[in-house]
């Protein structure tokens, strides 16, 4: 098991390394200013963010002023959106009544392109952090909500009947039966929402009143057509996304251990 895990991890890195080498070669041959080679991008990233003093973990001021606020926004937005998605998803998934009342409105809101609502958000929340958080939450809540609702609706009927027969209280039913059996699907939604929150964080930094952030740096680079700058931002987002995803998977493995173990029964 463990050794197999190590081997796949090594394999993944080898694949990645090969791809980066290919990318480097291809961009060098093509020589397009739009596609700088990865080495250029990395140099730029280093100069921009990671050439700081050791006591600041090598972060430059630019990094501290942009990356950290971005991550903070993202984390807060993700937490809020995920919580709202889980709560609403459970409500909609469990109560036919709540579903009926909310379904139409939620589906309506889900389809709305947030950029069209910037003015409304602005009027409601004002500039800056509050608006950005609202924006992130509004965008990421849907995958969590839909997947949670779906999961809550498809709890094994015999589990519900068992709970009912033993007269579990509403809270116990929810906490010990419905939520655990919804978890696998909920996690699919959360994982989507996590990467989405990174994306929407960038979007939110295009909003009026933004003065820092990774997204802000990307747009800034974009408006002056600083291609290595854009690429540096893109790669940083990729790396962050990758790391966050790995973190997420660790959490998932802890929470869904039973699920994975039970699934491994079948030889792949």
């Amino acid at each position, binding site marked *: 098991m463990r050794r197999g895990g190590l081997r*796949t991890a090594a394999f993944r890195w080898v694949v990645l390394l090969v791809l980066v080498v290919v990318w480097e070669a291809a961009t060098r041959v093509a020589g397009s200013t739009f596609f700088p080679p990865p080495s250029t991008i990395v140099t730029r990233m280093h100069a921009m963010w990671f050439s700081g003093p050791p006591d600041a973990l090598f972060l430059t001021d630019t990094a501290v002023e942009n990356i950290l606020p971005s991550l903070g926004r993202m984390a807060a937005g993700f937490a809020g959106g995920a919580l709202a998605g889980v709560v609403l998803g459970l409500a909609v998934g469990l109560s036919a009544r709540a579903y009926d009342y909310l379904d139409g409105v939620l*589906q309506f809101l889900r389809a709305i392109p947030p950029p069209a609502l910037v003015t409304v958000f602005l009027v409601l929340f004002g500039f800056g952090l509050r608006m950005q958080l609202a924006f992130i939450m509004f965008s990421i809540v849907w995958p969590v909500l839909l997947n949670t609702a779906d999961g809550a609706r498809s709890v094994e009927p015999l589990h519900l009947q068992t709970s009912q027969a033993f007269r579990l209280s509403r809270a116990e039913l929810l906490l010990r039966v419905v939520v655990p059996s919804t978890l696998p699907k909920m996690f699919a939604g959360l994982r989507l929402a996590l990467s989405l929150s990174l994306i929407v964080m960038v979007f939110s930094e295009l909003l009026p009143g933004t003065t820092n952030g990774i997204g802000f740096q990307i747009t800034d680079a974009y408006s002056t057509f600083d291609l290595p700058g854009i690429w540096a931002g893109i790669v940083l987002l990729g790396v962050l996304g990758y790391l966050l995803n790995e973190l997420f998977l660790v959490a998932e493995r802890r929470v869904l251990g039973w699920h994975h173990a039970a*699934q491994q029964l079948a030889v792949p």
Partner: protein
Amino acid sequence: MAVQGDRREDPHVAHHVRVSAQTLSRARPASTTTRWSRRAAGALAFAALIELAGRTGLIDAEFLPPATEIVGRAVTLLADPAFLGHALTSLLAWAMGLGIAAAIAVPLGLLLGSVPIIDAAMRSVVEFLRPIPSVALIPLVALVIGTGLQLRVTLVVYASLWPILYNTMYGLRGVDPLAKESLRSYGFGPLAVLLRVSLPSSAPFITTGIRLAAGVALILTVSTEIVAGRGEGIGVFIFFAGIAVPARMADILAGVFWVGLFGVVVNALLVAAERRAFRWHHAQLGERP
């Protein structure tokens, strides 16, 4: 102790417990009329909220016009051939984007979810690509494949790929191993097991992914049009309404209204299709087919 004892005797609490258990087992589904009137009530309440916010001056009506005004404007837009042209263009981009995304993501998800070696090889690449925002990609995509419909469709595909991909992968993981073993024991190969067991059994979850993606695709279509659209599209319509002085908020929100309504209709259709295709799933769960 006493409190706990009281709690157990409290008929009110007991009643609640029963209600919740009943709801969960869906013993008594409400009639269709009740359900639709509830939906209507929900929508009306939402509209009333907007109406009130505007009328009472809670929010400056210049920036959030009352619901009646928005809907009124939305209705008159229907008679505007220019708007219909915009709508049609967006619809096309949406449909193409979603279709292509599904055609790529489902097979890819099946592949990643069932062949560990490919999963291992692709995982890191996928995870690096996933968090790249489409806005950041616009100039690059525009440079490589040009602007116009293909730009929108590419971005829509890129964004709506993920919900389907992830839901397919997670769906595969939830397949009962014993069901797979059953088929395997009859000598069926991995492909047959995939197609005959894993796919149907995770199909309800995959379609949830498609439903999610349908919403994402819609958002991306219109957003891309707002940010970088040329020519036609609801997003272009919204963009131009926004740069007028003063901004034509009623137009913007009327456009939003139609987008939202379209989202509701698409979702309802997909849910109906799901219920039809996966009757076994819903019937088994005790829902009325």
